[in-house]
C-alpha cells in the first residue's frame, strides 16, 4: 500500500482524478458483489429445489432452529450495518477517530453475531443435527430433515465464513484508519468493505426467513 | 477396404429412420451454408487481393435489411429444425400405452435385465421384433446411460430414480449396447448386446432359455427333411413353383384369380395344397396335415420368407442379418 503511517492514500498513477479513482473502485466492488450473489445463489437454488420437493420435512427441520436467537442475530447484523454505514459517513467527512470507533462497533456486533451462531451450532451438535455421518433424527421425514440441516449448515456456514473474512478486513481497515490513511478524497477501502459488509447483511436478510421462519404457522 | 469403413449404423427400430432423416436434412443444410460461406470467403479473398502496398478497402454502408435478412433466415431454419427435432424427441421418450415393460438395473459395470415374464439376464437382452418395448431403468450406484446406436435411443440411468425409454425393434439381429455416461474404470467395458428375435423364437427362448437354432435355420432343415426340396428346386420350375422371392408376390390360381403370397397362403399351401392350386401345375403336392406341427409350419414359413429371388442362392447357411455393427451371433 502507498503512504507511510500518517500519509493518506493518494492518487494511483494510472488514474487521472480522485473522482475517477473512486468511481472505478466503487464499480469494481459492485461487480465483485454480483459474483457473490451468484456464489450464494447456487445454494439458494438448491434450497428452492429441495424445498419444493419436500416442504413438510423442511418445515419440521426449521422448527428445530431457535427463532429467538435467529431474530436477535438479525437485529445484531442490521445494527452492524448501521455502524458500518456510519463509519463510511465518518470517512466521507474526514473524522478519523469516528471511523475507528464505528468500525470497532461493527466488528463487535459482527463478533456478537458469530458468538450467537456458535451457541446455535453447539446446540445442534448436541442433538446430533449435524451434516455428515453423525446425523441422527428420531422423528418423521428423517431424510428430508437431514437435507434441511445440510443446507442450513452449508448456507449459514458460508455466510459465517464471509463474516469472518469481513471482520478480518475490518481490523486491517481500522488500523489503517487509525494511522490516518483515509481522507475525504480517498477512502475507497472503507467504502469497499462497507459494501461487502452490507452485502453479507443482505444474505442474512434472506437466510433468516428461509431457514428460521418457514413452517412456523404449522403446529408441529 | 472401404467396405469396412462404417459410416452409418443400421436402422433397426421404428425410430431410426426418423432420426436419420432429421440428421441428413440438417447435414444437407449445414453443408450448404458451409460451402456458401467458404466459397464466398475464398472468392472474395482472391478477387480482392491487395495489389498495392498502400491500398485500402472500400467501406460500404451497413444495410439494416441485409442484417435482418441474414438473421431471420437462419433463425427460421433453426426453428424449423427445432420443431422437427422436438417431435422426434417427444415420440422417442413417450412410450405408447401398450409397450411391454422390461426392467433394467445398471450397476458398475454391468446391466441387469428382467423380462415381464420374469426371466433375468446380464448384459444381454433378448427382445421380440415388432413389439413396443419400454425399459424402466434405475441404477444401483452412479449415473450410467443406456445406448443402442442401432435403435437411436439413449437415456441416462440414475440412482434413486426411474428413467424410461422405449423402442420397437424392426430388424432381426444383434446390436451393440453401450454405456454412454462415464461411470468409472470399466466404463468402456460396460456394454452388451440386444438380440432381436422373431416372436416365436423369443417365446422359445423364454421357455427354455434355449435360443436353439433360429426359425429360418430350422425351416431350412425341415425343407430338406420333409422332402420339399426334391420338388421345389431353386433353378427349375418344371416340377413345382420356385419359392425364391415368392413371398409378397402375386400368383395366378387355377380358377383365374390372383392372390398375394402371405403367411396364410403359405400355411394353406402346406396343409391343403389342392385348395389353392397354382395355374400350370398338376396336383402333385401331398398335404402335410397331420405330418407336421404348427411350430414346424411356422419354421417353414419363416424359411420361405427368407428366400431371396436370387436363384443362385441355395444350401449355404443363412445368416439372420449382416450388420457391420453386430457382435458375433450367439446362435
Amino acid at each position: 500500500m502507498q503512504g507511510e503511517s500518517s500519509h493518506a492514500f493518494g492518487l494511483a498513477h494510472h488514474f487521472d482524478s480522485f473522482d475517477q479513482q473512486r468511481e472505478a473502485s466503487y464499480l469494481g466492488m459492485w461487480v465483485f458483489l454480483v459474483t457473490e450473489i451468484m456464489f450464494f445463489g447456487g445454494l439458494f437454488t438448491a434450497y428452492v429445489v429441495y424445498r419444493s420437493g419436500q416442504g413438510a420435512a423442511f418445515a419440521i427441520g426449521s422448527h428445530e432452529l431457535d427463532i429467538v436467537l435467529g431474530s436477535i442475530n438479525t437485529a445484531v447484523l442490521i445494527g452492524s450495518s448501521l455502524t458500518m454505514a456510519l463509519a463510511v459517513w465518518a470517512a466521507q467527512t474526514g473524522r478519523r477517530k469516528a471511523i475507528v470507533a464505528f468500525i470497532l462497533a461493527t466488528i463487535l456486533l459482527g463478533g456478537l453475531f458469530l458468538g450467537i451462531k456458535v451457541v446455535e451450532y453447539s446446540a445442534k451438535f448436541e442433538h446430533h443435527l449435524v451434516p455428515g455421518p453423525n446425523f441422527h433424527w428420531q422423528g418423521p421425514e428423517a431424510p428430508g430433515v437431514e437435507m434441511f440441516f445440510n443446507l442450513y449448515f452449508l448456507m449459514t456456514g458460508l455466510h459465517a465464513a464471509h463474516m469472518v473474512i469481513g471482520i478480518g478486513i475490518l481490523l486491517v481497515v481500522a488500523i489503517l484508519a487509525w494511522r490516518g490513511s483515509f481522507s475525504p478524497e480517498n477512502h475507497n477501502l472503507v467504502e469497499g468493505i462497507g459494501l461487502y459488509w452490507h452485502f453479507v447483511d443482505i444474505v442474512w436478510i434472506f437466510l433468516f426467513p428461509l431457514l428460521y421462519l418457514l413452517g412456523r404457522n404449522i403446529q408441529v | 477396404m472401404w467396405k469396412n469403413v462404417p459410416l452409418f449404423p443400421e436402422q433397426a427400430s421404428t425410430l431410426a429412420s426418423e432420426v436419420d432423416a432429421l440428421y441428413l436434412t440438417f447435414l444437407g443444410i449445414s453443408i450448404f451454408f458451409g460451402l456458401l460461406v467458404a466459397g464466398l470467403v475464398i472468392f472474395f479473398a482472391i478477387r480482392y487481393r491487395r495489389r498495392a502496398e498502400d491500398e485500402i478497402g472500400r467501406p460500404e454502408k451497413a444495410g439494416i435489411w441485409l442484417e435482418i435478412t441474414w438473421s431471420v433466415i437462419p433463425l427460421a431454419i433453426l426453428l424449423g429444425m427445432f420443431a422437427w427435432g422436438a417431435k422426434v424427441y417427444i415420440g422417442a421418450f413417450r412410450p405408447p400405452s401398450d409397450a411391454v415393460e422390461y426392467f433394467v438395473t445398471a450397476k458398475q459395470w454391468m446391466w441387469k435385465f428382467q423380462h415381464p415374464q420374469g426371466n433375468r439376464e446380464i448384459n444381454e437382452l433378448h427382445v421380440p421384433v415388432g413389439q413396443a418395448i419400454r425399459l424402466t431403468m434405475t441404477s444401483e450406484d452412479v449415473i450410467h446411460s443406456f445406448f443402442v446406436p442401432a435403435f437411436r435411443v439413449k437415456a441416462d440411468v440414475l440412482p434413486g430414480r426411474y428413467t424410461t425409454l422405449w423402442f420397437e425393434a424392426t430388424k432381426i439381429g444383434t446390436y451393440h449396447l453401450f454405456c454412454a455416461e462415464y461411470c468409472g474404470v470399466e466404463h468402456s467395458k460396460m456394454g452388451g448386446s440386444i438380440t432381436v428375435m422373431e416372436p416365436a423364437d423369443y417365446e422359445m427362448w423364454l421357455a427354455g432359455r434355449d435360443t436353439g437354432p433360429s426359425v429360418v435355420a430350422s425351416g431350412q432343415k425341415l425343407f430338406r427333411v420333409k422332402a420339399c426340396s426334391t420338388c421345389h428346386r431353386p433353378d427349375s420350375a418344371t416340377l413345382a413353383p420356385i419359392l425364391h422371392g415368392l413371398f409378397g408376390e402375386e400368383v395366378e390360381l387355377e380358377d383365374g384369380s390372383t392372390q398375394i403370397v402371405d403367411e396364410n397362403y403359405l400355411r394353406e399351401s402346406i396343409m391343403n395344397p389342392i385348395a389353392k392350386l397354382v395355374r400350370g401345375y398338376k396336383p402333385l403336392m401331398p398335404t402335410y396335415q397331420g405330418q407336421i406341427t404348427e411350430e414346424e409350419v411356422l419354421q417353414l414359413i419363416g424359411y420361405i420368407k427368407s428366400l431371396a429371388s436370387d436363384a443362385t442362392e441355395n444350401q449355404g447357411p443363412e445368416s439372420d442379418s449382416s450388420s457391420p455393427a453386430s457382435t458375433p451371433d450367439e446362435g
Partner: protein
Amino acid sequence: MSEYITPIRTYLAVFLALMALTTITVAVAFLELGPFNDIAAMGIAITKACLVVLYFMHVRHSSRLTKMVVVAGFLWLFILIAFIMSDYLTRGMISLQGPIG
C-alpha cells in the same frame, strides 16, 4: 461529480425501518396464511434488501451504471433459479403417461 454524503438521520430512519420489518416478518410467520406466508416473508425480505442496497450502499445516489449492475446481479440469480425450477416442476409431464410401479 463529487460524492453524495447521506445524512445520518437517513441512516437512522432506514435502521428503524429494518428493525420494524424484522419484527413484522417474525410475527407474520406465526399466522396461518397458506401460500401467502412465503410470499409475505419474501416480500418483506426483498423490501429490507432494497433499503440496504439503496441507502446503506448508496445506490440511490450513484450512477445509472451502478444501478444496472445491481439489477443485473439479481436478475441473473432469478434466471438461475427460474430455469432450474422449470425442470423440476415439469418432470414426468410429457414423457410418462403416469407413474410407474
